[in-house]
């Protein structure tokens, strides 16, 4: 175990032949992540980054750094120009150069790559590279980005608007006039960082014009395609392999380091590896900050007359996932309620910040923080229990979402009831919780919230199942394992569909030279979409096996019965084993191929495609205790319920649900990233506090809700990666508001904000009226410009 040949290639295991052994290896620390990969004659990269948020890039001075010990090459925008790649762009809107050219757009933007014999040599030399920039005025706030005279962040664009997603439905003006109470509120979310413990890592190597990449990527198929386009290669000349990820949470969506590492490898002629340091992570990708202004009206029965919202997002300098984030938040902000008239405008603007990317909950968390707190405020103002208010307004199956589309499969009511019921159960069990302090310094209360999140629609997933001559089946997909257990899921789905033991499945890890296309492992879609592709591949494999046996036995396929491991001629009882069929096939294997695309259904009345082929649905209920002396909020008990449809892997489903609640505690209570002068105010995990075991309530109850199995209606498998997360912060916010009588409108719910809300001493939701322009909490909201 001790002492290895440093020159031996160590690219990690390409497949999982034994899922039980894989679990033991994971616990033992034996599995290899991208950070553990190495190639012979590999060199190391370190990045030289922009010191300013905006400016004209005059060049880099590499004279002193080039002479430093161990330096192999220093690669910058000049090399891109020389190689004809100055105009090459990648990213969500093809707006990102491989390295900064002509201008820099955020503090930390990669300007040059130093390639050296060791990581420490690369880092030392990178510190000696001088970046010559003429700084210019940056755009640091999203509202500043919209001013008429604002500098334009992205060259070639008329203004800073990256995307504008709008949707209206119903007669808003008429609905407003029917409202007996109207509420207007403003809520804000800061940036945050995904903070996977394994940072972004990329290793790239060129061999005879082929580009081979090992990367921490959630979407190897798309990264491979992007690299092929960037470097003018045939798609088959790029191979992207993804070992298990040491966490991702959306942060490893989209190409990031791959283009510049591949380029540095090409220029230096060496395999090059880049491992982000922790400080690098904070300028590589963030959660999109957002300000939400939301208005709701209710009638005398406590039903919505209308809801409308404006969301202003800061994208940072490049569009990673900014377009889908603005859409996702826009779709979700009004919630899964019956809303006769509605309008949403979701505006994403470029700013001189590090690029915002996917963050577990993709835009919905920012939206739900606003929408679900306002729901609570309305209920409490009207003197209605927040659970009852939601029950009266939540959609049932077949009813119309605010967009006007029908939701075929709605389960929010069940989720809400299950969350509340579990919280009650937790209270009864909770014998270990310390009793509330009698001196009045601890205030306890309950809060609930629901969540709705789309899944990418349409999106394609492919699968290949290969029956081998040894009777085992390779499950080849490009679904990335990032801890969510997708390897177990695809193996189980394949085994069930093939009616073969799970132990016979071999899960092939993503390798674009071997595994077929998959849009992305994100959007909580793998269990659903890749699962369906695997099922289709299994059906195809069974058909092909039957054909082969039919030829071999000389009997028509419809005379064949499947008998475990064999196909048998019903008449003669002659049979052939599956392994023998594969052994006799060309190449010693038989392939089944499956493709799944979740094409959106069209509304029966309007003909419009639905926004999402299904909705991730969940509800969270929490008990909090607020220390009014310190402002510290502690979640004492938490419960969550998510719609699963059909659970594939029960332990994995439980981990996803519990993990949703636990992950959600961070952005709710601590996590925040600000860019006061364009540079992040946090650069390490000392100052960026992540949830620890001590933050987690001992009573944490979750449930994955399943449909009763029926013979004729197939029940969809839903992913559970994000079903509860968006509900966590508003549930806590609602509980805090109930506990202290003042509502926190800006995340995170820090002790300072809690103390400020206590000092403000407003009457809370039920005090002082609550109508827009009235007193109490609504008065505080009235200064936001009055919503729409």
């Amino acid at each position, binding site marked *: 175990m001790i002492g290895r040949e440093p020159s031996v290639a160590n690219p990690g295991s390409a497949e999982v032949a034994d899922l039980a052994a894989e679990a033991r290896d994971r616990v033992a620390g034996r599995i290899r992540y991208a950070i553990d990969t190495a190639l012979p004659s590999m060199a190391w990269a370190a990045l030289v980054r922009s010191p300013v948020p905006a400016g004209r890039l005059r060049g880099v001075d590499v004279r002193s750094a080039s002479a430093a010990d161990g330096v192999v090459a220093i690669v910058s925008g000049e090399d891109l120009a020389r190689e004809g790649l100055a105009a090459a762009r990648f990213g969500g809107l093809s707006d990102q150069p491989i390295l900064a050219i002509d201008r820099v757009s955020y503090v930390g933007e990669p300007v040059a790559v130093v390639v050296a014999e060791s990581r420490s040599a690369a880092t030392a030399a990178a510190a000696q590279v001088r970046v010559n920039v003429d700084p210019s005025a940056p755009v640091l706030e999203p509202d500043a980005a919209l001013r008429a005279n604002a500098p334009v962040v992205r060259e070639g664009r008329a203004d800073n608007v990256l995307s504008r997603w709008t949707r209206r439905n119903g007669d808003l003006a008429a609905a407003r006039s029917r409202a007996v109470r109207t509420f207007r509120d403003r809520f804000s979310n800061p940036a945050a960082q995904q903070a996977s413990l394994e940072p972004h890592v990329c290793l790239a190597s060129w061999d005879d014009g082929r580009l081979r990449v090992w990367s921490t990527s959630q979407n190897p198929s798309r990264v491979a395609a992007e690299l092929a386009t960037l470097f003018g290669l045939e798609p088959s000349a790029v191979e992207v392999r993804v070992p298990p990820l040491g966490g991702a949470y959306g942060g490893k969506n989209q190409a990031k380091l791959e283009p510049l590492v591949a380029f540095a490898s090409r220029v230096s002629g060496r395999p090059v590896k880049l491992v982000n340091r922790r400080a690098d992570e904070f300028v590589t990708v963030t959660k999109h900050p957002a300000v939400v202004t939301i208005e709701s009206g209710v009638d005398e029965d406590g039903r919505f007359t209308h809801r409308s919202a404006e969301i202003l997002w800061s994208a940072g300098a490049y569009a990673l996932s900014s377009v889908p984030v603005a859409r996702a938040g826009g779709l979700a902000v009004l919630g899964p309620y019956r809303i006769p008239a509605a309008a949403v405008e979701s505006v994403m603007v470029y700013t001189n910040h590090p690029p915002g990317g996917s963050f577990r909950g993709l835009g919905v968390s920012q939206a739900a923080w606003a929408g679900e707190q306002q729901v609570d405020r309305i209920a409490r103002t009207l003197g209605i229990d927040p659970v009852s208010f939601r029950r009266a307004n939540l959609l049932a199956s077949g009813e119309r979402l605010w967009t006007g589309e029908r939701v075929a499969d709605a389960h929010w009511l069940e989720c809400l009831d299950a969350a509340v019921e579990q919280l009650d159960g937790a209270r009864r069990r909770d014998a270990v919780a310390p009793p509330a302090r009698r001196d009045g310094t601890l205030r306890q209360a309950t809060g609930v919230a629901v969540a709705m999140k789309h899944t990418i629609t349409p999106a394609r997933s492919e699968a290949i199942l290969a029956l081998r001559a040894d009777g085992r089946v390779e499950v080849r997909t490009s679904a990335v394992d990032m801890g969510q257990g997708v390897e177990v899921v695809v193996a189980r789905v394949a085994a069930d569909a093939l009616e073969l033991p799970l132990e016979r499945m071999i899960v092939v890890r993503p390798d674009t030279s071997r595994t077929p296309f998959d849009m992305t492992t994100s959007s909580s879609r793998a269990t659903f979409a890749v699962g369906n592709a695997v099922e289709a591949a299994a059906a195809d494999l069974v058909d092909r096996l039957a054909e082969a046996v039919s030829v071999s036995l000389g009997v028509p396929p419809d005379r064949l019965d499947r008998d475990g491991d064999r196909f048998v001629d019903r008449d003669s009882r002659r049979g052939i084993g599956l392994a023998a069929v594969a052994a006799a096939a060309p190449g010693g294997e038989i392939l089944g191929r499956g493709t799944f695309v979740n094409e959106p259904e069209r509304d029966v009345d309007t003909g419009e495609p639905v926004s999402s082929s299904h909705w991730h649905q969940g509800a969270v209920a929490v008990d909090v205790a607020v220390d009014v002396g310190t402002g510290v909020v502690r979640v004492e008990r938490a419960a969550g319920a998510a719609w699963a449809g059909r659970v594939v892997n029960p332990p994995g489903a439980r981990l996803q649900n519990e993990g949703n609640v636990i992950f959600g505690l961070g952005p709710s209570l601590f996590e925040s990233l600000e860019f006061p002068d364009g540079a992040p105010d946090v650069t390490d995990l000392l100052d960026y506090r992540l949830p*620890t075991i001590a933050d987690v309530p001992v009573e944490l109850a979750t449930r994955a809700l399943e449909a009763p199995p029926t013979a004729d209606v197939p029940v969809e498998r839903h992913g559970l990666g994000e079903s509860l997360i968006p509900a966590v912060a508003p549930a806590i916010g609602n509980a805090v508001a109930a506990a202290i009588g003042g509502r926190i409108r800006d995340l995170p719910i820090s002790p300072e904000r809690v103390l400020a809300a206590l000092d403000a001493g407003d009457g809370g939701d039920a005090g002082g009226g609550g109508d827009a322009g009235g007193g109490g909490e609504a008065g505080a909201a009235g200064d936001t410009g009055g919503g729409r």
Partner: protein
Amino acid sequence: MSDAIRLRVNGASVSVEVDPLRPLQEIVHDELDLSSVRAACGVGTCGACTVLLDGEPARSCLVPVGLAVGRDIRTSEGLRDDDPVRVAFVSEHAYQCGYCIPGFVLATSSLLERTPAPEPVEIDAALVGNVCRCGSYAAIRRAVGLAARLRDERLEAGDAEPSARTRRPNPGDAGEPE
């Protein structure tokens, strides 16, 4: 500046030519290929690089390798697959991406050594320095509880064989490479 440094890792003696100020984490992970000792925060706050130094959990990213000379260094690789803590983490599914888990396993081993039947607050106190970003803490609590029971059962069954983790090196014991 490199020195020949002799370390005692998982009971075996090993020599490395390295700068004694480099972090122990880098040496065991990069030079000795003990992949369970993981780089993550680099500032001693997340626990992914946890090793046991003379039985106590230590953040190897903060320990200059020169200061580990003469001490008993244990990593996850030094545990057996039938170690009760490992068995418990596997059977309670107390892992997601797994990057942090070897650190939790070592911290748990050390806890159970001191406190064979920990209360919930003692479990939290012992593991508060280890971060699981995936949020497996509830499962980790269940696993620690199971590990304590498994360990107890083994002691009851008269399994007196001390585990690798608890075996103190004998003076002069060169150890076998593992």
